[in-house]
């Protein structure tokens, strides 16, 4: 019985530590909303770059 308790205690401690680390990483990093917001900006930038990559029309 004592060895089972030891495993459970170790597991609980490890879980607590890792959850804390994950929370810290989440609070510092980018969120899903940040990632979602990049797509429309990429679309606009690609459209602008494609337009700029077109040859400049020359006057005849």
């Amino acid at each position, binding site marked *: 019985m004592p060895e089972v308790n030891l495993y459970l205690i170790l*597991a609980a401690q490890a879980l607590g530590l890792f959850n804390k680390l994950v929370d810290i990483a989440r609070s510092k990093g980018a969120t899903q909303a940040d990632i979602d917001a990049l797509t429309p900006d990429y679309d606009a930038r690609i459209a602008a770059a494609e337009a700029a990559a077109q040859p400049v029309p020359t006057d005849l």
Partner: protein
Amino acid sequence: MRSTARLSLACLALALLAACATTQVQKARQVSVDVHATLAAIQDAENQLYASQSVPQWTPEKHQQFNAALVVALKAGRAFNEGVRTAPDAAAGTNLAVVSGQIQQLSQIVQDTLPLSSPVVAAINIAKDAVLQVLPIFFPAPVA
């Protein structure tokens, strides 16, 4: 008794795996935001340079050539971000490698035309550093 201990260990292993996966996703998100920021900085700097006409050697042809390469980089950046939005996988690394290659190409286009002090060159150098730092996350060194 033994089975309870094994169950505890299995739960612990699962929890550790979940935690590692979460931090990997978090890393990928941060990388995606950084890649977008560097590409946006390059584009904005080049647009300002071209509009200002402060460097005569930066001709409309150079502007076109630069933007043609930038389109490929931006599309790879968008594909990388889409991968991060859904589920980061091996394709994410491939897209990041395309971004890295295109940044190198942009660097060659500006070489011998723009001074090192140009904001465009600075933005490209920052992008190079940023991508080189994050590439190992998606292409880990092989274990000897």
